[in-house]
């Protein structure tokens, strides 16, 4: 539950405002259509059903707006292309854009142990102070993963005890 609250805090305030406006607007529209409209299905519906219809369905749109706001803020903090992802989450219907975002998003950036700058995942050195943040290939200095026998970028044989951790 605490994780859920933490993630909810990422949603920007503007997304909450837009979400409530969308909810109220759609609820009002559906309320009007269900009371004064001429739809045969709706006119037979009891009053409770109409209220549920007008107040319940816009909740999903409200949630979608919050999810889009989350995608915007989360992609930004991960150093991803947040405008593109926000547009995809908005225009691909039925939250499919949001699903794609969760499937393809980058890992969270790591914090530099020396200057605390957020460093994008995959960088071997801090771009601000040059401190090593990941294990790097001794030859090409690119970040390598634990368990690799050879560097995936230049093909250098990596030491068994682990690649170079040489400080800048």
């Amino acid at each position: 539950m605490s994780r859920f609250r933490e993630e909810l805090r990422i949603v920007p305030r503007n997304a909450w405002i837009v979400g409530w406006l969308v909810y109220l607007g759609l609820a009002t529209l559906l309320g009007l259509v269900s009371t004064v409209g001429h739809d045969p299905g709706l006119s037979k519906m009891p009053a409770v059903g109409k209220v549920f219809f007008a107040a319940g369905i816009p909740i999903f749109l409200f949630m979608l707006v919050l999810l889009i706001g989350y995608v915007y803020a989360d992609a930004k903090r991960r150093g991803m292309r947040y405008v593109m992802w926000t547009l995809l989450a908005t225009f691909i219907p039925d939250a499919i854009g949001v699903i794609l975002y969760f499937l393809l998003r980058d890992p969270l950036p790591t914090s530099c142990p020396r200057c605390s700058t957020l460093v994008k995942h995959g960088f071997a050195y801090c771009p601000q102070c040059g401190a090593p943040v990941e294990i790097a290939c001794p030859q090409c200095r690119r970040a390598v993963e634990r368990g690799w026998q050879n560097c995936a970028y230049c093909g250098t044989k990596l030491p068994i005890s682990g690649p170079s951790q040489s400080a800048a």
Partner: protein
Amino acid sequence: MNEHAEIRELLSLAAAGALRREEEERVARHIHECAECTAEFENWQSLAAGLRRLPTPQPPAGLVERTRARTAWQLAAEGEQRWNHGVLIFLVLFGWTLTLASWPVVRLVSGGLLGWLDPGFEHTWIGLVGYTALVWVTGGVAAAMLALRRRRERRLA
């Protein structure tokens, strides 16, 4: 294994100070009576003393911080992976709920426009199936395009 052989196994540990009190006392009693073990114990003691005099290698600067940051990052990544599984299940259910919930709204707000475009489309089930298929095919095409783009970016990296 007799007493002598057992004590010989413990001599190196005794010299390193790694035995329990009762074991230490047992070794001391045996050494007092056995010249061979006394000589071996003295050898071990001088070796241990020599090792203690060697300079202690210092870890590179920032290694502890780096390891701590790396561990914290790995824990966060594992937590996020578990969280992502739950979120994806929720989102798929949410996506389908949104499809089903938005259909009556589309039908109602369009004011019969769909029926005007094609009278057969007004039949709820045909319309719903068509609408759902259109939405998920759009999503599938977008997913395929993004996956291709990502693969190309990785190749260029």
